[in-house]
């Protein structure tokens, strides 16, 4: 019995994500299931626009959790990712409480006694009151758990990666003045990367490594079906077939799933019933983002449409 359960639960993940409009391949579903089971972050790599960020959103929506997003960029540091002291508030409070402090300390006969009294109050100004939690700390403090999305980790500096290690492996952070903050409920962590630079081994080791590539034709059709319900079946098959042909070209930026969906929307708006030569040429700029790519693809349009339609007949 124990052997049958896992595949059923993996299917449950697949169905749950599908209900949120995210059609997951079996490998993605396995990753999500395992991440829950062994409480490890998922590191998602793949080309831009294949739904890495969407995955986190879908998980959050499916499990009814809050999603906290940390967008990485060069120069991102502790103060913006983890926590920051509210200096202004500290300053203000000291000013306001100046008289009060004077009163309290005024009673002390010697300097030493005053210092001792001050020690008792010392921690007041370095308490949780004055900490501004940034996304990472917020994620740890969510009582119901949450989905923490650390987006485009490859854009951050190598130092920031090291900062993440403690959070990723133990779901805790250490704030020197306050001590260690442990997660109330372990968050589901998703990291995404466009492989702009190689991530450190230490980071990779702490994560499940999931690579999302361009989906297979059948899967992509299902994705389009769920995202753009208004599109007819013939057109859907043709356009997905066409995009798969485009991806065989040597282009600067291959169209990914997000482009497929955009294009499907455009075609629906233009009330197309099937792919036409002129229409494709006019809307090619939705699919391809570089002038050189469009130039390269244009002469091939007719052949690709023909191929896509032929596939349609047999498949």
């Amino acid at each position, binding site marked *: 019995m*124990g*052997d*049958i*359960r*896992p*595949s059923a639960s*993996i299917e449950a993940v697949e169905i749950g994500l599908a209900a949120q409009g995210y059609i997951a391949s*079996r*490998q993605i579903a*396995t*990753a999500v*299931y*395992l991440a829950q*089971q*062994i409480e*490890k972050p998922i590191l998602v790599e793949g080309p831009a626009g294949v739904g890495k960020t969407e995955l986190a959103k879908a998980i959050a929506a499916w499990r009814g959790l809050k999603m906290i997003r940390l967008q990485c960029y060069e120069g991102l540091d502790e*103060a913006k990712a983890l926590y920051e*002291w509210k*200096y*202004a508030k500290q*300053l203000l409070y000291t000013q306001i409480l100046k008289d009060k402090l004077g009163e309290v300390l005024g009673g002390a006969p010697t300097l030493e006694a005053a210092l001792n009294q001050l020690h008792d109050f010392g921690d007041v100004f370095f308490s949780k009151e004055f900490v501004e939690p940034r996304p990472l700390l917020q994620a740890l403090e969510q009582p119901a758990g949450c989905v923490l999305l650390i987006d485009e980790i490859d854009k951050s*500096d*190598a*130092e920031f990666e090291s900062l993440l290690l403690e959070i990723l492996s133990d779901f805790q952070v250490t704030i020197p003045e306050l001590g260690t903050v442990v997660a109330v409920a372990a968050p589901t962590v998703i990291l995404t990367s466009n492989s702009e*630079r*190689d991530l450190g*081994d230490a980071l*990779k*080791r702490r994560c*499940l*490594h*999931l*690579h999302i590539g361009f989906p297979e034709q059948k899967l992509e059709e299902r994705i389009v079906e769920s995202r753009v319900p208004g599109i007819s079946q013939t057109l859907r098959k043709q356009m997905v077939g066409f995009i798969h042909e485009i991806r065989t070209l040597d282009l600067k930026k291959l169209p990914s799933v997000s482009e497929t969906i955009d294009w499907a929307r455009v075609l629906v708006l233009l009330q197309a019933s099937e792919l036409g030569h002129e229409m494709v040429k006019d809307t090619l700029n939705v699919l391809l983002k570089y002038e050189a790519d469009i130039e390269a693809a244009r002469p091939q349009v007719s052949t690709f449409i023909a191929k896509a339609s032929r596939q349609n007949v047999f498949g």
Partner: protein
Amino acid sequence: MRENLHRFFRAARGAGVRLSPAESIDAMRAVSKVGFADRAVLLDTFLLTLAKTQDEKKALGDCFDLFFDQPEPQAPPEDGKPDEQDQSGSSPSSDSSEDNSGDGEQAEGLGQLAQMLLAQDRNQISAAIANASSAASLSDIRYFTQRGIFSGRILDQMGIQRLRDDLDNLTATDPALAERLTNALDGLRGTVRETVSQALMLYGREEAENLRNEILANAPLSRIEPRQVDQMRRLIRQIARRLRERYSKPRKRQRRGHLDVRRTIRRNAAWGGVPFLTAWKRRHRDRPKIVAICDVSGSVARVSDFFLLLIHSLHEVVDDVRSFAFSGHLIEVSDILESKSPEEAMAEIMSKVGFGSSDYGNSFDDFEHGWMSAITPQTTVIVLGDARSNNLDPRADILRRIGERSKRLVWLNPEGRMAWGWGDSEMPRYSTFCTVVRQCATAKQLERAVSDIVASYQ
């Protein structure tokens, strides 16, 4: 099953997937959650927990297939038919039942292995081979030369000695049965051999690769055979990866002690200029700038080829590389190397300047007239050549000027130190103007030379 997982991890390491104990623990935890029932899910689980890159995922996938495909015991062909009949005929035909009972009688007094072989029970034989393999610690196999010894050990474990005795006895008493047994034994041998070959592919690959790379790394680059060129390219790429990993790490390091006043004031403007946050000056390190001047005549060409391949695959570490190739005269080859595959690039370079007798003086002259401005005080100039100038004017004065303009001038010579200065070698004259002169004939020396050059910028 834990034993099997451990063996699989070892095999995965052999396939080039870098696995730490922590990762294998994770994988085991994950496997305990998904179970072994669904092979596809199991594979996905391994891919998620163990592999960290696309290449590793592919290697791991192949390894997975190999590991979980055990070779089927081969049935001798003529025995295959009754075997199939046995399986397909649900009602035992009188013929085969007689046959079986006959076997039983004849098998009396035979060893266990002989009985097993005659019974043609595939599952039992597979299990026996698997047991014998682990008893003979087959997973320790490392080199292809060990195939025979491991096959022998497994067969010994299975009781081949007893089988031989049985065979000897049977040849006298029952030649027909002996014949069948001999056939079955041949089949068994084949299966065991296959098992051992598979184990070698699984466990021995890493070791074999290491050995081959070790030999290759120490072989003179100029004398490797054409069929080894591809391997050498792969090795050079590995070296490049190693150097990249070592030197592409943070180049900006905060230096405490020097306050960056401008940035500190800017950062604390929100608090009325009270400096809560301090900003420190950073020291930027230059990435290496390299000008490589390579001799591509005759025997040096191969070394230049690999050197250029290495230098040009160090993009992350080296900011700016300009390469020049010469034999009789000199041209810039950076663009060719950037835009084409190594093979094509080298072919094109050779067709342009190769195959001449080398003229160092003329080539240095070309460089001084055309590209001297490429050298800045941050540049390392690397000259790769044997300094054999066919008794033409060496123009060491130009080399001196190059050395004065640049940060460092490194000369890499594929010839051994003993040969420098003999015959038409101008090495002693050139070496006085070089910061470093070193021999560079093997991949290992090449790695050290490039590594030192890059390290001088850190």
